[in-house]
């Protein structure tokens, strides 16, 4: 009859069980506790709502947009219109609906953030853990390379890469990714140094595990939380760098509704037609703030040293 008893146990009790009966239960339990502490932080929740909102807007952009983001209306009559019932956020200098462009621009923003993360995080993690675990000359070489990348201001380095690769959104993503990984490598290395000499690593090594296996299965998972926190906090920076490149004409090419490029094209009208540059500016502000708040909240939850 124990089985029945366990089934009547509520989901909450199962998750908070002090003696989990399986690894899965333990994992879910941890996740649930993290979520509980995150949800107690209202600012982090606000950030989460913004980020989830961004993802939803990007997914349903076609349904949410009222007009085409690329093809404008009549240049003579629908250009630079103020916000109205027909054009919620007004129209730009090519008579395009700014609201629809913002909605479609969220896809670009999300794409940039995700791709940069996907490229930069594994690279940083790998370099950092290898350097930290191997030590010696390999550590020195990898960390000096990291130092070289860190020595340049990020936007300047990204600018140099884009100038070399040619303007375009793909190249902007590559350039930002190239400039984004060094901090992750630093953090991963620092974490690795603190755990490489611990007993459980020694135990794994005594059991005959190879170096790659130790790094991949035992060190990386422990470095991951702090790197994730750092990446989330960086996302605002990534968005701003992408917007900066777009503003300078080196990111997305027209007519792509990239937010930074939209601000750049609205700049010359800012005194008389404030909405053209302001709306994408607000969008960048809200999304960057959202990522920052979420990152802060995640740090409180995931960082083992800060916790309790």
């Amino acid at each position: 009859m124990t089985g029945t008893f366990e089934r009547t146990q509520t989901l909450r009790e199962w998750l908070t069980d002090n003696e989990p009966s399986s690894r899965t239960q333990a994992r879910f339990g941890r996740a649930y506790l993290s979520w509980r502490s995150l949800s107690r932080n209202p600012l982090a929740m606000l950030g989460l709502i913004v980020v989830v909102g961004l993802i939803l807007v990007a997914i349903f952009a076609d349904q949410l947009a009222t007009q085409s983001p690329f093809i404008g209306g009549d240049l003579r009559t629908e250009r630079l219109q103020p916000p109205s019932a027909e054009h919620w956020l007004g129209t730009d200098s090519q008579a395009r609906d700014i609201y629809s462009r913002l909605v479609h621009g969220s896809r670009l923003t999300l794409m940039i953030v995700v791709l940069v993360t996907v490229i930069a995080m594994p690279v940083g993690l790998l370099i950092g853990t290898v350097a930290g675990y191997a030590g010696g000359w390999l550590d020195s070489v990898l960390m000096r390379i990291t130092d070289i990348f860190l020595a340049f201001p990020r936007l300047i380095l990204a600018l140099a890469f884009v100038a070399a690769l040619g303007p375009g959104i793909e190249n902007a993503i590559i350039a930002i990714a190239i400039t984004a990984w060094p901090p992750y490598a630093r953090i991963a290395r620092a974490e690795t140094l603190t755990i490489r000499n611990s007993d459980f690593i020694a135990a794994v090594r005594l059991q005959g595990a190879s170096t790659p296996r130790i790094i991949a299965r035992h060190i990386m998972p422990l470095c991951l939380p702090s790197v994730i926190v750092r990446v989330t906090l960086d996302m605002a920076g990534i968005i701003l760098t992408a917007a900066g490149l777009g503003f300078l004409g080196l990111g997305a090419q027209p007519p792509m509704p990239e937010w930074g490029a939209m601000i750049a094209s609205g700049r010359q009208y800012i005194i008389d037609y404030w909405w053209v540059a302001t709306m994408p500016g607000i969008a960048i502000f809200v999304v960057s703030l959202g990522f920052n708040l979420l990152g802060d909240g995640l740090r409180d939850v995931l960082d083992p040293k800060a916790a309790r």
Partner: protein
Amino acid sequence: MKIVKALLAAGAILALTLLPTRAVTPDDTLVMASQIDDVITLDPAEVFEFSAAEMVGNSYERLIGYDLDDVSDIFGVVAESWEVSEDGKTLTFTVRQGKTFASGNELTAEDVVFSLQRALKLDLSPAFILTQFGFTADNVEEKIVQTGDYEFTFEMDQAYAPTFVLYCLTSTVASVVDKDLVLEHEVDGDLGHEWLKRNHAGSGPFAIRQWRPNEAVVMERNEHYEPEVPLARVIYQHVPESSTQRLMLEQGDIDIARDLGPEELQALEQLDGIKIQSGVKGGLYYLGLNQKNEYLSKPEVRQALKYLVDYDAIADTIMEGLAEVHQSFLPTGLLGSVEDTPFSLDVERAKELLAEAGLAEGFSITMDTRNTSDITGMGEAIQQTFAQAGIDLQLIPGDGAQTLTKYRAREHDIYIGRWGPDYQDPHTNADTFAANPDNSDDAAAKPLAWRNAWDIPELTKKTQSAILETNTEERARVYEGLQREVMDRGPFVIMFQEIEVMAMQDNVNNFIIGPSFDSNEFGEASKD
């Protein structure tokens, strides 16, 4: 008590600074906000830039001038009269007496001959305007010869149309420099070039006193100029942002704002005390279609693209007040200019033409677009109308130097750009739009037709024969034919002619916006 007084004083200062104040420039000084970052030299033998050409135009005098309202009316400025020899190859000029340089030296034929010889010997970018007549650095001393205190001869290798020769002598490169003053500053036989780059040795209404790169140019009245110049000083202030120029004008910090967009001009037009003045310029906005591209080399495609630009809508909105529709390669005002505009947005017609070319499905192509607001704005509008006929136009943004370098190496598909005539004779544009003597990659001459790889031996011959036609009416007819031919099958979608607009304080009078970049004149301008 001391503290109270100090507080009172501080309060008074604060109150004063918070009061809205309106600055005023001095009555005898004209201050302009302008983008003068293009100035690299002030030597008339080298100047080829828009801003510098205007400064030189107001501080030097040229042999010949033309009526700014009617370009076809040419008259002597430094030259009092001229005679053409029997064989049409030699011109004898008489120099006007009584002219004086800003330095106080008298202007004689010696200075004129020196100036022309100097331009040819230095052989800098604008020298080609004079080398067209068969002069070289080596033969110029025998060909341009002083024959009296106020007389010299000008001997060419062929009997060119006299109007063509005279128009070339209206250009900046034919400015007269003060021989004695320039030679005083000669270093290692450079004919004073290094010195003149930053200084002035002319006889125009103003003398250039100071040039601080990317900051300001200060010009002062030439006391020796006749008739007396009303303004004592003209200052160009470098202000790159157009919105800053607008605010400065509204606050009275400047008298004229030179680089405003259509929206800013509209807003300023509403204000009291500010007026807008505009003048039609010779600059043309056009698309260059590279004939190395498999799609663009088809005549039907070239024709179709000419029907896929919404000329009127762009001129009425994005370029409002800054451009008017113009579709022939000679701007309005030049001899023989064709004024009709046969092309307008016609998507159906364009689709038919594309179908004839076997491209009913459309195609994908790139356009190099300079990242200034006007060019990008036009580019995006064209992108939308091209898309209506299934042509996927990708804009490649870049700064002016990037796009131009690519264009000059003819590595583009489509290039959107601006072309300004070098002098007021139709040959200046015909020579570039309708002549391509050698279409090979390492050709010596690289006109626009070459840049777009348009191989036209027949048309080139016609263009080259036109400068030898001495009958002006017949010559105009030749140019009309050339324009129609380029319009019909050329790789150029010529769209607009440029209009220069300035916003100025109401009290500025007699500032003249001329048809070319070196003919914006403020010698007679005044403030009241």
